[in-house]
Protein backbone atom coordinates (compact mmCIF):
# COMPACT_ATOMS: atom_id res chain seq x y z
CA UNK A 1 0.00 0.00 0.00
CA UNK A 2 2.06 2.99 -1.11
CA UNK A 3 -0.25 5.65 0.22
CA UNK A 4 -2.46 5.72 3.23
CA UNK A 5 -3.98 9.12 3.84
CA UNK A 6 -5.70 9.60 7.16
CA UNK A 7 -7.91 12.57 7.97
CA UNK A 8 -5.57 14.90 6.04
CA UNK A 9 -6.21 18.63 6.31
CA UNK A 10 -3.86 21.19 4.78
CA UNK A 11 -3.89 24.95 5.15
CA UNK A 12 -2.09 27.29 2.79
CA UNK A 13 -1.40 30.78 4.08
CA UNK A 14 -3.96 30.26 6.81
CA UNK A 15 -6.67 29.17 4.36
CA UNK A 16 -7.94 25.60 4.56
CA UNK A 17 -7.43 23.87 1.19
CA UNK A 18 -7.87 20.19 1.99
CA UNK A 19 -10.49 19.01 4.48
CA UNK A 20 -10.04 15.69 6.21
CA UNK A 21 -9.15 13.52 3.20
CA UNK A 22 -9.16 9.83 4.00
CA UNK A 23 -8.26 7.13 1.50
CA UNK A 24 -5.69 4.51 0.57
CA UNK A 25 -4.04 3.84 -2.77
CA UNK A 26 -3.00 0.31 -3.70
CA UNK A 27 0.56 -0.41 -4.81
CA UNK A 28 1.37 -0.21 -8.49
CA UNK A 29 -0.69 1.08 -11.35
CA UNK A 30 -1.79 4.56 -12.29
CA UNK A 31 -4.04 6.74 -10.18
CA UNK A 32 -5.53 9.83 -11.80
CA UNK A 33 -6.61 12.84 -9.77
CA UNK A 34 -9.43 14.87 -11.31
CA UNK A 35 -11.27 17.95 -10.17
CA UNK A 36 -12.05 21.54 -11.15
CA UNK A 37 -9.49 24.34 -10.87
CA UNK A 38 -8.88 25.19 -7.24
CA UNK A 39 -10.24 21.89 -5.97
CA UNK A 40 -6.94 21.11 -4.21
CA UNK A 41 -5.40 18.63 -6.69
CA UNK A 42 -1.94 20.16 -6.71
CA UNK A 43 -2.01 20.72 -2.96
CA UNK A 44 -2.85 17.07 -2.47
CA UNK A 45 -0.03 15.97 -4.77
CA UNK A 46 2.43 18.22 -2.90
CA UNK A 47 1.20 16.85 0.40
CA UNK A 48 1.68 13.28 -0.85
CA UNK A 49 5.24 14.22 -1.85
CA UNK A 50 5.84 15.46 1.69
CA UNK A 51 6.29 19.09 0.63
CA UNK A 52 3.51 20.48 2.81
CA UNK A 53 3.14 19.94 6.53
CA UNK A 54 -0.36 18.65 7.38
CA UNK A 55 -2.52 20.82 9.58
CA UNK A 56 -4.14 17.65 10.81
CA UNK A 57 -3.87 13.96 9.94
CA UNK A 58 -1.02 12.25 8.14
CA UNK A 59 0.29 10.76 4.93
CA UNK A 60 1.81 7.31 5.18
CA UNK A 61 3.97 5.93 2.40
CA UNK A 62 4.48 2.18 2.69
CA UNK A 63 3.53 2.40 6.32
CA UNK A 64 5.90 5.27 7.08
CA UNK A 65 4.68 8.73 8.13
CA UNK A 66 6.41 10.89 5.52
CA UNK A 67 6.39 14.00 7.71
CA UNK A 68 8.81 12.13 9.99
CA UNK A 69 11.24 11.28 7.17
CA UNK A 70 14.37 13.37 6.55
CA UNK A 71 14.12 15.11 3.13
CA UNK A 72 16.76 12.95 1.46
CA UNK A 73 15.23 9.69 2.63
CA UNK A 74 11.83 10.92 1.47
CA UNK A 75 13.26 11.87 -1.93
CA UNK A 76 14.56 8.33 -2.36
CA UNK A 77 11.04 6.95 -2.00
CA UNK A 78 8.78 9.51 -3.66
CA UNK A 79 9.53 11.52 -6.80
CA UNK A 80 7.42 14.46 -7.89
CA UNK A 81 7.33 16.47 -11.09
CA UNK A 82 5.64 19.86 -10.59
CA UNK A 83 3.53 21.41 -13.30
CA UNK A 84 5.20 23.56 -15.98
CA UNK A 85 8.73 22.97 -14.77
CA UNK A 86 11.13 25.10 -16.83
CA UNK A 87 14.69 24.10 -17.60
CA UNK A 88 17.32 26.84 -17.29
CA UNK A 89 18.51 27.96 -20.75
CA UNK A 90 21.27 25.84 -22.26
CA UNK A 91 20.92 22.92 -19.84
CA UNK A 92 21.37 19.68 -21.78
CA UNK A 93 19.01 16.73 -21.53
CA UNK A 94 21.63 14.62 -19.80
CA UNK A 95 22.40 17.37 -17.29
CA UNK A 96 18.71 17.77 -16.53
CA UNK A 97 18.17 14.05 -16.08
CA UNK A 98 21.26 13.84 -13.86
CA UNK A 99 19.57 16.27 -11.43
CA UNK A 100 17.30 13.37 -10.55
CA UNK A 101 20.22 11.64 -8.85
CA UNK A 102 20.43 14.37 -6.20
CA UNK A 103 19.06 12.34 -3.26
CA UNK A 104 21.48 9.48 -4.01
CA UNK A 105 24.64 11.52 -4.51
CA UNK A 106 27.10 12.08 -1.65
CA UNK A 107 27.38 15.79 -0.87
CA UNK A 108 30.15 17.57 -2.81
CA UNK A 109 31.14 14.39 -4.66
CA UNK A 110 30.54 13.88 -8.38
CA UNK A 111 28.21 11.23 -9.80
CA UNK A 112 29.43 7.66 -9.47
CA UNK A 113 28.99 4.75 -11.90
CA UNK A 114 25.65 3.82 -10.28
CA UNK A 115 24.37 7.33 -10.90
CA UNK A 116 25.52 7.38 -14.51
CA UNK A 117 23.93 3.99 -15.12
CA UNK A 118 20.64 5.24 -13.68
CA UNK A 119 20.76 8.31 -15.92
CA UNK A 120 21.44 6.10 -18.96
CA UNK A 121 18.53 3.83 -18.06
CA UNK A 122 16.22 6.81 -17.65
CA UNK A 123 17.25 8.27 -21.01
CA UNK A 124 16.72 4.86 -22.59
CA UNK A 125 13.29 4.48 -21.03
CA UNK A 126 12.01 7.74 -22.50
CA UNK A 127 13.85 7.27 -25.82
CA UNK A 128 16.06 10.35 -25.56
CA UNK A 129 19.48 8.68 -25.77
CA UNK A 130 20.21 10.28 -29.13
CA UNK A 131 19.22 13.74 -27.91
CA UNK A 132 21.05 13.56 -24.58
CA UNK A 133 23.59 16.21 -25.55
CA UNK A 134 21.00 18.68 -26.85
CA UNK A 135 19.86 21.66 -24.77
CA UNK A 136 16.44 21.01 -23.27
CA UNK A 137 15.10 24.32 -24.57
CA UNK A 138 15.86 23.29 -28.15
CA UNK A 139 13.55 20.24 -27.97
CA UNK A 140 9.92 19.95 -29.02
CA UNK A 141 7.26 20.07 -26.32
CA UNK A 142 6.83 16.31 -26.28
CA UNK A 143 10.54 15.60 -26.11
CA UNK A 144 10.93 18.17 -23.38
CA UNK A 145 8.23 16.54 -21.27
CA UNK A 146 9.92 13.17 -21.76
CA UNK A 147 13.20 14.69 -20.54
CA UNK A 148 11.47 15.85 -17.34
CA UNK A 149 9.98 12.41 -16.85
CA UNK A 150 13.44 10.93 -17.31
CA UNK A 151 14.65 13.18 -14.47
CA UNK A 152 12.01 11.67 -12.22
CA UNK A 153 12.90 8.15 -13.42
CA UNK A 154 16.57 8.71 -12.65
CA UNK A 155 15.50 9.39 -9.07
CA UNK A 156 14.63 5.66 -8.92
CA UNK A 157 11.65 5.90 -6.60
CA UNK A 158 8.92 3.33 -6.71
CA UNK A 159 6.34 6.08 -6.40
CA UNK A 160 6.08 8.88 -8.95
CA UNK A 161 3.79 11.90 -8.67
CA UNK A 162 3.12 13.99 -11.79
CA UNK A 163 1.25 17.30 -11.95
CA UNK A 164 -0.55 17.50 -15.30
CA UNK A 165 2.14 15.77 -17.35
CA UNK A 166 0.07 15.97 -20.53
CA UNK A 167 -0.50 19.72 -20.45
CA UNK A 168 0.34 21.75 -23.53
CA UNK A 169 1.05 18.67 -25.64
CA UNK A 170 -0.65 18.09 -28.96
CA UNK A 171 -2.60 14.87 -29.48
CA UNK A 172 0.17 12.74 -31.04
CA UNK A 173 2.56 13.73 -28.25
CA UNK A 174 -0.11 13.06 -25.66
CA UNK A 175 -0.65 9.60 -27.10
CA UNK A 176 3.07 8.93 -27.11
CA UNK A 177 3.48 10.07 -23.51
CA UNK A 178 0.47 8.06 -22.38
CA UNK A 179 2.21 4.96 -23.73
CA UNK A 180 5.27 5.81 -21.67
CA UNK A 181 3.22 6.45 -18.52
CA UNK A 182 1.45 3.10 -18.96
CA UNK A 183 4.82 1.37 -18.99
CA UNK A 184 5.80 3.18 -15.80
CA UNK A 185 2.59 2.05 -14.14
CA UNK A 186 3.52 -1.56 -14.71
CA UNK A 187 6.51 -1.42 -12.37
CA UNK A 188 5.77 1.55 -10.12
CA UNK A 189 2.97 3.46 -8.48
CA UNK A 190 2.16 6.54 -10.53
CA UNK A 191 -0.18 9.25 -9.27
CA UNK A 192 -0.98 12.07 -11.66
CA UNK A 193 -3.28 15.00 -12.08
CA UNK A 194 -5.21 14.91 -15.35
CA UNK A 195 -7.61 17.33 -16.98
CA UNK A 196 -8.71 15.22 -19.89
CA UNK A 197 -11.27 12.79 -18.50
CA UNK A 198 -11.28 10.56 -21.56
CA UNK A 199 -7.53 10.11 -21.29
CA UNK A 200 -7.95 9.52 -17.57
CA UNK A 201 -10.43 6.78 -18.42
CA UNK A 202 -7.94 5.11 -20.73
CA UNK A 203 -4.74 5.21 -18.67
CA UNK A 204 -5.82 5.11 -15.06
CA UNK A 205 -6.36 2.01 -13.01
CA UNK A 206 -8.28 4.16 -10.61
CA UNK A 207 -9.54 7.71 -10.43
CA UNK A 208 -9.80 10.01 -7.46
CA UNK A 209 -12.18 12.97 -7.72
CA UNK A 210 -11.81 16.10 -5.58
CA UNK A 211 -14.16 19.00 -5.06
CA UNK A 212 -13.28 21.98 -2.88
CA UNK A 213 -10.68 20.01 -0.99
CA UNK A 214 -12.95 17.08 -0.25
CA UNK A 215 -12.93 13.58 -1.66
CA UNK A 216 -15.94 13.00 -3.91
CA UNK A 217 -15.20 9.54 -5.23
CA UNK A 218 -12.41 7.04 -5.60
CA UNK A 219 -12.51 3.86 -7.64
CA UNK A 220 -11.99 2.34 -11.08
CA UNK A 221 -12.58 4.71 -14.05
CA UNK A 222 -15.80 2.91 -14.98
CA UNK A 223 -17.33 3.89 -11.64
CA UNK A 224 -15.94 7.37 -11.03
CA UNK A 225 -16.21 8.60 -14.62
CA UNK A 226 -19.96 8.27 -14.76
CA UNK A 227 -22.60 11.03 -14.73
CA UNK A 228 -23.40 11.17 -11.03
CA UNK A 229 -19.89 11.34 -9.49
CA UNK A 230 -18.84 13.72 -12.27
CA UNK A 231 -21.76 16.05 -11.62
CA UNK A 232 -20.80 16.06 -7.98
CA UNK A 233 -17.16 16.77 -8.84
CA UNK A 234 -17.55 19.49 -11.43
CA UNK A 235 -21.06 20.80 -10.77
CA UNK A 236 -22.16 20.26 -14.36
CA UNK A 237 -23.80 17.41 -16.24
CA UNK A 238 -21.82 14.95 -18.36
CA UNK A 239 -22.65 12.72 -21.30
CA UNK A 240 -20.97 9.37 -20.87
CA UNK A 241 -20.76 6.50 -23.30
CA UNK A 242 -18.75 3.33 -23.42
CA UNK A 243 -16.40 2.26 -26.18
CA UNK A 244 -16.38 -1.38 -27.38
CA UNK A 245 -13.35 -2.05 -25.15
CA UNK A 246 -15.42 -1.11 -22.10
CA UNK A 247 -13.62 2.20 -21.38
CA UNK A 248 -15.80 5.28 -20.88
CA UNK A 249 -15.75 8.42 -23.05
CA UNK A 250 -16.85 11.53 -21.19
CA UNK A 251 -17.95 14.97 -22.40
CA UNK A 252 -19.67 17.87 -20.64
CA UNK A 253 -23.38 17.74 -21.48
CA UNK A 254 -24.48 20.15 -24.18
CA UNK A 255 -20.97 20.52 -25.61
Amino acid sequence: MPFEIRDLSIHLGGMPVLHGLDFTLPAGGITGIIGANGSGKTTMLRAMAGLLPPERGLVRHQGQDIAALPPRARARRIAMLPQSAAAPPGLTVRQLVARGRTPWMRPFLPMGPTDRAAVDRALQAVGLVDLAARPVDSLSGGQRQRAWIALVLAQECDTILLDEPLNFLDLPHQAELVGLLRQLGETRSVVMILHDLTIAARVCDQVLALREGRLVAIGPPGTVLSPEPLRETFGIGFDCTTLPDGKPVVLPAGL
Partner: protein
Amino acid sequence: MRFLGLLLLLLVLAVLSLSAGRVWLGPIALFDALMDPEGAGRMIWNLRLPRLLVGMIAGAGFGLAGLTFQTLLRNPLASPDVIGVTQVAAFGAVAALFLGAPVVLGAWAGGLAAVAVLGWLAAHPRHGIETRAVVLQGLALAIFAAAGTEALILRMGDSSAGMAMTWLSGTLNAAGWAEVRRGIWLAPLLIPLLLAGRVLDRLELGDDLARALGLRVGLLRAGLGLIAALVAAGSVALCGPMGFVALAAGPVGRLVAGGRPSPLAAMLTGAAFVTLADVLARALAPAALLPTGLYTALIGAPVLILTVRRMARR
Protein backbone atom coordinates in the same frame (compact mmCIF):
# COMPACT_ATOMS: atom_id res chain seq x y z
CA MET B 1 39.45 24.46 -19.94
CA ARG B 2 37.32 27.56 -19.77
CA PHE B 3 38.21 28.01 -16.11
CA LEU B 4 41.85 27.83 -17.06
CA GLY B 5 41.31 30.61 -19.58
CA LEU B 6 39.63 32.71 -16.92
CA LEU B 7 42.48 32.05 -14.51
CA LEU B 8 45.02 32.99 -17.19
CA LEU B 9 43.14 36.21 -17.90
CA LEU B 10 43.17 37.04 -14.20
CA LEU B 11 46.93 36.43 -14.09
CA VAL B 12 47.58 38.69 -17.09
CA LEU B 13 45.41 41.40 -15.55
CA ALA B 14 47.26 41.04 -12.25
CA VAL B 15 50.63 41.57 -13.96
CA LEU B 16 49.20 44.55 -15.85
CA SER B 17 47.84 45.94 -12.61
CA LEU B 18 51.26 45.81 -10.99
CA SER B 19 52.80 47.50 -14.02
CA ALA B 20 50.22 50.24 -14.47
CA GLY B 21 50.24 53.64 -12.83
CA ARG B 22 51.98 56.95 -12.90
CA VAL B 23 55.23 55.04 -13.40
CA TRP B 24 54.84 52.19 -15.89
CA LEU B 25 57.04 49.18 -15.37
CA GLY B 26 58.09 46.81 -18.11
CA PRO B 27 58.13 43.06 -17.35
CA ILE B 28 61.82 43.05 -16.44
CA ALA B 29 61.60 46.13 -14.23
CA LEU B 30 58.53 44.63 -12.57
CA PHE B 31 60.37 41.38 -11.87
CA ASP B 32 63.34 43.27 -10.43
CA ALA B 33 61.02 45.35 -8.27
CA LEU B 34 59.23 42.27 -6.94
CA MET B 35 62.58 40.74 -6.03
CA ASP B 36 63.62 43.84 -4.11
CA PRO B 37 60.89 44.73 -1.59
CA GLU B 38 63.11 47.05 0.44
CA GLY B 39 64.69 49.05 -2.36
CA ALA B 40 63.40 49.66 -5.88
CA GLY B 41 60.30 47.56 -5.26
CA ARG B 42 58.97 49.52 -2.32
CA MET B 43 56.30 51.28 -4.36
CA ILE B 44 55.14 47.93 -5.79
CA TRP B 45 55.16 46.18 -2.43
CA ASN B 46 53.62 48.98 -0.41
CA LEU B 47 51.10 50.33 -2.88
CA ARG B 48 50.36 48.28 -5.98
CA LEU B 49 50.48 44.75 -4.61
CA PRO B 50 48.10 45.34 -1.67
CA ARG B 51 45.88 47.35 -3.99
CA LEU B 52 45.77 44.45 -6.44
CA LEU B 53 45.04 41.93 -3.68
CA VAL B 54 42.30 44.00 -2.06
CA GLY B 55 40.67 44.51 -5.46
CA MET B 56 40.79 40.81 -6.25
CA ILE B 57 39.39 39.81 -2.86
CA ALA B 58 36.59 42.36 -3.03
CA GLY B 59 35.84 41.44 -6.64
CA ALA B 60 35.77 37.75 -5.76
CA GLY B 61 33.35 38.50 -2.95
CA PHE B 62 31.08 40.66 -5.10
CA GLY B 63 31.08 38.03 -7.86
CA LEU B 64 30.23 35.16 -5.53
CA ALA B 65 27.57 37.11 -3.67
CA GLY B 66 26.09 38.27 -6.97
CA LEU B 67 25.74 34.78 -8.41
CA THR B 68 24.40 33.41 -5.13
CA PHE B 69 21.65 36.02 -4.80
CA GLN B 70 20.76 35.83 -8.50
CA THR B 71 20.36 32.06 -8.34
CA LEU B 72 18.65 31.92 -4.95
CA LEU B 73 16.07 34.37 -6.23
CA ARG B 74 16.06 32.95 -9.78
CA ASN B 75 16.45 36.41 -11.28
CA PRO B 76 19.54 37.74 -13.08
CA LEU B 77 18.69 41.22 -11.78
CA ALA B 78 18.61 40.15 -8.15
CA SER B 79 22.24 40.91 -7.35
CA PRO B 80 23.13 42.48 -3.99
CA ASP B 81 23.81 45.87 -5.59
CA VAL B 82 20.29 45.94 -7.08
CA ILE B 83 18.27 44.51 -4.21
CA GLY B 84 19.75 46.88 -1.67
CA VAL B 85 22.10 44.59 0.26
CA THR B 86 25.15 46.57 -0.90
CA GLN B 87 23.49 49.92 -0.24
CA VAL B 88 22.36 49.04 3.26
CA ALA B 89 25.83 47.64 3.95
CA ALA B 90 27.33 50.92 2.73
CA PHE B 91 24.93 52.81 4.99
CA GLY B 92 26.04 50.62 7.88
CA ALA B 93 29.70 51.26 7.03
CA VAL B 94 29.24 55.03 6.85
CA ALA B 95 27.21 54.97 10.07
CA ALA B 96 30.02 53.02 11.75
CA LEU B 97 32.52 55.58 10.47
CA PHE B 98 30.29 58.32 11.87
CA LEU B 99 30.11 56.61 15.27
CA GLY B 100 33.75 55.56 15.32
CA ALA B 101 32.93 51.85 15.22
CA PRO B 102 34.75 49.30 12.99
CA VAL B 103 33.57 49.78 9.40
CA VAL B 104 33.29 46.08 8.65
CA LEU B 105 30.93 45.52 11.59
CA GLY B 106 28.70 48.33 10.37
CA ALA B 107 28.72 46.88 6.85
CA TRP B 108 27.92 43.39 8.13
CA ALA B 109 25.10 44.64 10.31
CA GLY B 110 23.70 46.49 7.30
CA GLY B 111 24.00 43.48 4.98
CA LEU B 112 22.31 41.13 7.44
CA ALA B 113 19.59 43.65 8.16
CA ALA B 114 18.91 44.01 4.42
CA VAL B 115 18.52 40.26 3.96
CA ALA B 116 16.33 40.00 7.04
CA VAL B 117 14.05 42.81 5.82
CA LEU B 118 13.85 41.36 2.29
CA GLY B 119 13.14 37.88 3.63
CA TRP B 120 10.38 39.26 5.81
CA LEU B 121 8.88 41.42 3.05
CA ALA B 122 8.97 38.68 0.45
CA ALA B 123 7.74 35.83 2.63
CA HIS B 124 4.80 34.33 0.82
CA PRO B 125 2.37 32.11 2.67
CA ARG B 126 2.06 29.67 -0.24
CA HIS B 127 5.34 29.64 -2.07
CA GLY B 128 7.81 30.26 0.74
CA ILE B 129 9.28 33.33 -0.91
CA GLU B 130 7.96 35.53 -3.71
CA THR B 131 11.12 35.78 -5.75
CA ARG B 132 9.82 38.29 -8.28
CA ALA B 133 8.70 40.76 -5.63
CA VAL B 134 12.10 40.74 -3.96
CA VAL B 135 13.76 42.65 -6.78
CA LEU B 136 11.28 45.50 -6.67
CA GLN B 137 11.17 45.65 -2.89
CA GLY B 138 14.97 45.50 -2.87
CA LEU B 139 15.16 48.38 -5.32
CA ALA B 140 13.07 50.47 -2.94
CA LEU B 141 15.30 49.39 -0.06
CA ALA B 142 18.39 50.43 -2.05
CA ILE B 143 17.01 53.90 -2.72
CA PHE B 144 15.99 54.27 0.91
CA ALA B 145 19.44 53.24 2.14
CA ALA B 146 21.21 55.53 -0.35
CA ALA B 147 19.15 58.46 0.93
CA GLY B 148 20.12 57.57 4.50
CA THR B 149 23.80 57.40 3.56
CA GLU B 150 23.59 60.80 1.86
CA ALA B 151 21.96 62.27 4.94
CA LEU B 152 24.81 60.97 7.09
CA ILE B 153 27.44 62.32 4.71
CA LEU B 154 25.82 65.76 4.68
CA ARG B 155 26.31 65.90 8.44
CA MET B 156 30.01 65.11 8.17
CA GLY B 157 32.75 67.71 7.89
CA ASP B 158 33.80 68.76 4.38
CA SER B 159 37.00 66.73 4.24
CA SER B 160 35.50 63.46 5.47
CA ALA B 161 32.42 64.04 3.30
CA GLY B 162 34.63 64.21 0.20
CA MET B 163 36.37 60.99 1.20
CA ALA B 164 33.07 59.33 1.89
CA MET B 165 31.75 60.33 -1.54
CA THR B 166 34.80 58.78 -3.26
CA TRP B 167 34.41 55.67 -1.12
CA LEU B 168 30.75 55.43 -2.10
CA SER B 169 31.65 55.03 -5.76
CA GLY B 170 34.09 52.26 -4.87
CA THR B 171 37.77 53.01 -4.63
CA LEU B 172 41.02 51.14 -4.05
CA ASN B 173 43.01 54.31 -3.39
CA ALA B 174 43.21 53.61 0.33
CA ALA B 175 44.03 49.90 -0.04
CA GLY B 176 47.10 48.83 1.94
CA TRP B 177 48.29 45.73 3.74
CA ALA B 178 45.90 46.40 6.62
CA GLU B 179 43.03 46.03 4.13
CA VAL B 180 44.59 42.85 2.71
CA ARG B 181 44.67 41.37 6.20
CA ARG B 182 41.05 42.30 6.74
CA GLY B 183 40.20 40.83 3.36
CA ILE B 184 41.77 37.51 4.28
CA TRP B 185 39.22 37.27 7.07
CA LEU B 186 36.58 37.11 4.37
CA ALA B 187 38.02 33.89 2.89
CA PRO B 188 36.25 31.46 5.28
CA LEU B 189 32.95 33.04 4.25
CA LEU B 190 33.69 32.44 0.57
CA ILE B 191 34.10 28.69 1.05
CA PRO B 192 30.45 27.75 1.67
CA LEU B 193 29.41 29.85 -1.33
CA LEU B 194 32.05 28.16 -3.51
CA LEU B 195 30.73 24.75 -2.45
CA ALA B 196 27.10 25.65 -3.10
CA GLY B 197 27.19 25.05 -6.87
CA ARG B 198 25.11 21.88 -6.70
CA VAL B 199 22.50 23.50 -4.47
CA LEU B 200 22.23 26.47 -6.83
CA ASP B 201 21.84 24.08 -9.78
CA ARG B 202 18.90 22.39 -8.09
CA LEU B 203 17.24 25.59 -6.92
CA GLU B 204 17.19 26.76 -10.52
CA LEU B 205 14.66 24.01 -11.25
CA GLY B 206 12.13 25.58 -8.90
CA ASP B 207 11.46 25.27 -5.18
CA ASP B 208 9.04 22.36 -5.37
CA LEU B 209 11.28 20.20 -7.54
CA ALA B 210 14.34 21.06 -5.44
CA ARG B 211 12.45 19.99 -2.33
CA ALA B 212 11.18 16.84 -4.02
CA LEU B 213 14.83 16.06 -4.76
CA GLY B 214 15.50 16.19 -1.02
CA LEU B 215 16.87 19.70 -0.52
CA ARG B 216 15.95 21.75 2.56
CA VAL B 217 15.12 24.73 0.39
CA GLY B 218 14.06 27.22 3.08
CA LEU B 219 17.08 26.53 5.25
CA LEU B 220 19.52 26.62 2.32
CA ARG B 221 18.09 29.83 0.88
CA ALA B 222 18.20 31.61 4.24
CA GLY B 223 21.68 30.29 5.10
CA LEU B 224 23.28 30.99 1.74
CA GLY B 225 21.51 34.38 1.55
CA LEU B 226 22.91 35.44 4.91
CA ILE B 227 26.43 34.26 4.04
CA ALA B 228 26.28 35.99 0.67
CA ALA B 229 25.14 39.17 2.44
CA LEU B 230 28.15 38.97 4.78
CA VAL B 231 30.44 38.46 1.80
CA ALA B 232 28.98 41.37 -0.18
CA ALA B 233 29.09 43.59 2.91
CA GLY B 234 32.65 42.51 3.63
CA SER B 235 33.64 43.54 0.12
CA VAL B 236 31.87 46.87 0.61
CA ALA B 237 33.88 47.42 3.78
CA LEU B 238 37.09 46.81 1.82
CA CYS B 239 36.60 49.14 -1.12
CA GLY B 240 33.14 50.68 -1.04
CA PRO B 241 30.08 49.60 -3.01
CA MET B 242 31.67 49.00 -6.39
CA GLY B 243 28.90 49.13 -8.93
CA PHE B 244 28.01 46.42 -11.45
CA VAL B 245 30.58 43.84 -10.31
CA ALA B 246 28.06 41.64 -8.52
CA LEU B 247 25.43 42.19 -11.18
CA ALA B 248 27.67 41.36 -14.15
CA ALA B 249 29.89 38.63 -12.67
CA GLY B 250 27.03 36.15 -12.31
CA PRO B 251 25.84 36.13 -15.93
CA VAL B 252 29.37 36.43 -17.36
CA GLY B 253 30.62 33.59 -15.16
CA ARG B 254 27.59 31.56 -16.20
CA LEU B 255 28.49 32.07 -19.84
CA VAL B 256 32.04 30.91 -19.11
CA ALA B 257 30.73 27.84 -17.28
CA GLY B 258 28.45 26.83 -20.15
CA GLY B 259 25.23 28.22 -18.72
CA ARG B 260 25.47 26.65 -15.26
CA PRO B 261 25.57 28.76 -12.13
CA SER B 262 29.23 28.22 -11.31
CA PRO B 263 30.44 29.91 -8.11
CA LEU B 264 34.08 29.44 -9.12
CA ALA B 265 33.55 31.14 -12.48
CA ALA B 266 31.59 33.98 -10.88
CA MET B 267 34.32 34.48 -8.29
CA LEU B 268 37.11 34.59 -10.87
CA THR B 269 35.04 36.87 -13.11
CA GLY B 270 34.43 39.28 -10.24
CA ALA B 271 38.12 39.38 -9.36
CA ALA B 272 39.14 39.86 -13.00
CA PHE B 273 36.53 42.54 -13.43
CA VAL B 274 37.72 44.71 -10.53
CA THR B 275 41.36 44.20 -11.54
CA LEU B 276 40.61 45.27 -15.11
CA ALA B 277 38.71 48.33 -13.91
CA ASP B 278 41.58 49.28 -11.63
CA VAL B 279 44.12 48.89 -14.46
CA LEU B 280 41.98 51.20 -16.57
CA ALA B 281 41.58 53.66 -13.70
CA ARG B 282 45.34 54.01 -13.49
CA ALA B 283 46.18 53.64 -17.18
CA LEU B 284 43.68 56.16 -18.53
CA ALA B 285 44.07 58.90 -15.94
CA PRO B 286 47.05 58.11 -13.71
CA ALA B 287 47.11 61.55 -12.11
CA ALA B 288 43.40 61.88 -11.40
CA LEU B 289 43.05 58.78 -9.18
CA LEU B 290 39.43 58.40 -10.18
CA PRO B 291 37.47 55.83 -8.19
CA THR B 292 37.78 52.31 -9.59
CA GLY B 293 34.02 51.95 -9.20
CA LEU B 294 33.57 54.47 -12.00
CA TYR B 295 35.28 52.06 -14.37
CA THR B 296 33.51 48.94 -13.12
CA ALA B 297 30.26 50.69 -14.02
CA LEU B 298 31.71 51.83 -17.34
CA ILE B 299 32.72 48.29 -18.37
CA GLY B 300 29.98 46.54 -16.43
CA ALA B 301 27.01 48.13 -18.13
CA PRO B 302 27.92 47.13 -21.72
CA VAL B 303 29.16 43.70 -20.61
CA LEU B 304 25.89 43.09 -18.86
CA ILE B 305 23.83 44.21 -21.86
CA LEU B 306 25.83 41.92 -24.18
CA THR B 307 25.50 38.99 -21.82
CA VAL B 308 21.78 39.38 -21.38
CA ARG B 309 21.38 39.60 -25.15
CA ARG B 310 23.39 36.43 -25.64
CA MET B 311 21.36 34.65 -23.01
CA ALA B 312 18.11 35.79 -24.57
CA ARG B 313 19.20 34.51 -27.98
CA ARG B 314 19.77 30.97 -26.70
